[in-house]
């Protein structure tokens, strides 16, 4: 081939690529815009209608004009009408007193924030987060906020991952900072591992909480105290704990295929006896911090395999052979207000 022919071929390829990518972008853009203009499939209700009794607050994931906003359904009729709050969150935790909302702003340089909202969903405080939103939880009376984010790009191996979990007072005030700075006791001995990561807080009260500590390829369920700034291991192999409403049990994820692959299943542990039940028929490969609907039922979000960006909230009984059932369609990050 002559140089001229090569230049010509290159020009043809570049034009084809520009046209191809451009057409794809325009078509995809139109499709997304059309989707985002549509009304939600689920029937809508005014917020006041669903907020007198127990309710489930979640991120709506229908590809429509409410995509990503926080919605509320009555706990008595989860599949029924949903009320939209107009507030957008990637992760949300709510109590009657207010809510914590983790947000990603992907415009130009992605930035991450935690926003605290009052009972009327009006902003009270906003703080920057050091990474990608992962978990948020409130204490039972709504006075404390816990956040977990993924800090990418600056762990020890620069390509690995690292988490940052922080606790602060709702609306400002005391900040306990990164829980990595807390004193750590693993299996009865004080430990100071370099590679520790902490994630997934669940509060008992205004001082005590449970969380996950990861180090040396293992995970631990730890009990923490804000007052004494300590984390003490309770048992091994437990991620993202959630405390039951009566405070007697914790539900968490366990990796049932340790090694390179991660396959999470839900387990429930009785705190008094230490007895652990694996939900064998439960969801496999879930990747969410579970939430208790009541003392015998768990909630969690699962992305749809065939529809990117859309997920559903499922519920499952805490017995070993219980089968999960679809509770709320087009929903993510469920949180229960009692």
């Amino acid at each position, binding site marked *: 081939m002559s140089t001229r022919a090569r230049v010509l071929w290159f020009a043809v390829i570049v034009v084809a690529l520009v046209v191809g990518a451009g057409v794809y972008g325009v078509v995809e853009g139109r499709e*997304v815009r059309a989707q985002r203009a549509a009304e939600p499939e689920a029937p809508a209700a005014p917020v006041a209608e669903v907020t007198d009794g127990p309710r489930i607050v979640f991120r709506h994931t229908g590809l429509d004009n409410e995509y990503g906003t926080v919605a509320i359904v009555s706990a008595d009729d989860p599949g029924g009408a949903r009320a939209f709050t107009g507030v957008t969150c990637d992760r949300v935790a709510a109590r009657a007193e207010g809510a914590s909302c983790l947000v990603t702003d992907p415009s130009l340089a992605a930035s991450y924030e935690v926003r605290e909202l009052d009972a009327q969903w009006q902003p009270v405080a906003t703080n920057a987060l050091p990474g990608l939103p992962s978990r948020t939880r409130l204490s039972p009376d709504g006075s404390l906020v816990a956040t977990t984010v993924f800090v990418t790009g600056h*762990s*020890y*191996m620069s*390509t690995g*991952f690292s988490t940052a979990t922080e606790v602060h007072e709702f609306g400002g005030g005391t900040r306990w900072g990164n829980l990595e700075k807390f004193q750590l006791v693993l299996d009865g001995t004080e430990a100071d591992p370099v590679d520790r990561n902490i994630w997934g807080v669940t509060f008992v009260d205004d001082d005590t909480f449970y969380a996950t500590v990861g180090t040396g390829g293992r995970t631990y369920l730890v009990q923490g105290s804000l007052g004494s700034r300590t984390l003490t291991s309770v048992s091994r192999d437990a991620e993202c704990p959630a405390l039951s409403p009566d405070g007697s049990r914790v539900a968490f994820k366990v990796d049932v295929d340790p090694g390179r692959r991660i396959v999470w299943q839900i387990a429930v542990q009785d705190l008094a006896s230490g007895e652990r039940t694996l939900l064998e028929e439960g969801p496999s490969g879930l990747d969410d911090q579970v939430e208790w609907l009541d003392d015998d039922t768990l909630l969690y979000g*699962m992305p749809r395999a065939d529809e990117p960006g859309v*997920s559903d909230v499922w519920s499952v009984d805490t017995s070993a052979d219980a089968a999960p059932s679809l509770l709320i369609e087009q929903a993510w990050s469920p949180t229960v207000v009692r």
Partner: protein
Amino acid sequence: MYISVRDRPATGEESRSGTTVTTPPVGRVVIILGVVSLLTDVSSESVSAILPLYLTLVVGLTPVAYGLIDGLYQGVSALVRLGGGWVADATDRPKWVAFLGYGLSAVARVFLLFASGAAGIAAVVTADRIGKGIRTAPRDAMISTSTPAEHLGRAFGVHRMLDTIGAALGPLIAFGILVLVPDGYSVVLVVSLAFALAGVALLGLLGPDVRSRREAAAQSGPTPPPFRWRDLTDRRLRPLLVIAGVLGLLTVGDGFIYLALLDHGGVNVSWFPLFYVGTNLAYLLLAVPVGRLADRVGRARILVVGHLALVGAYLCAVLPTSTAAATIGTLALLGTFYAATDGVIAALAGRLVPVQARTSGIAAAQTVVALARMLASAGFGLMWLLLGPATAMIVVAGLLAVAILAAASRVRLLDTAEVTP
């Protein structure tokens, strides 16, 4: 010894236009390879900028699942790099080895469009990294072979400048698309694929088939012997590997420097993504001037002295008075460090081994640097927690300053040893 580099015949244009001492234009090979790298970097950096968001918001994975597997292939990449160097030397076909590397990364982009699940995405990212490992040394060897020795620093500077422009444009293009098309992650992936394919097409169609061994034969008579591993233990290359290794052991990841800046609390966390932009900007502005300087005063000298900029960056990052000026200063120093080291070491290594081992020599130097820096980051993570950010940074800065002083005595030796045509 080989012929003196100053005796190389000047090109026709140069002797015609040359009234006084004019610098010849940067070679076509360098520009083409630079544009190939620019296109490829736009492709890879646009994806890396959105990958964490894409994984968590769309695919529904947490980066844990992804990060665990991600840590494994650092070592693989180093081995692949040496392998790529060896094949390029053994066949004397660096262009086609580089083409294979670029092609592999482009194919990986196609699969990324359809990958779901942690394992699939990790496999695609691994293929991309392997492609990068394969292509780097052969491409640098092509630049080295097609440039007269006295302008090597500038040639690598031009290449790295184009490369870094691509790295800076990638995230801008990605986030620009996300602004235009809400949640348009698949559009970013398709655009990224288009850039990767354009890079591969440019190299394949217009990249010259530079053949170091054959060209050496055409210029100075006898064909150089085929590559042997023994060539890598060349007396002239060894001190460079030692110096690069020792300095690399004291080069902690950029992430730590950025973290130290944030640790003061003086800089808002939301500025974090701009740290990369700032460093890249300094790098692309300085790559050519520093490369030219290296041609004048000696490349080994610039390589070693350039590490002083890193010492400066360490110290600047932990200055007790944290201000915008200290932040900008840190990023500028970090960019200067890259300008003085990344291309310069390839320029140097390619000329410290016999011509038949050029790609392997460059690959060896780059592998030593990569492995040393990995160890440095792992070790520094420990120091960071034991001593605290500020003390740890100051200790490393002190050690690095001592290492620079020690290496400085070897600089003259390296700069005069560099005679392979």
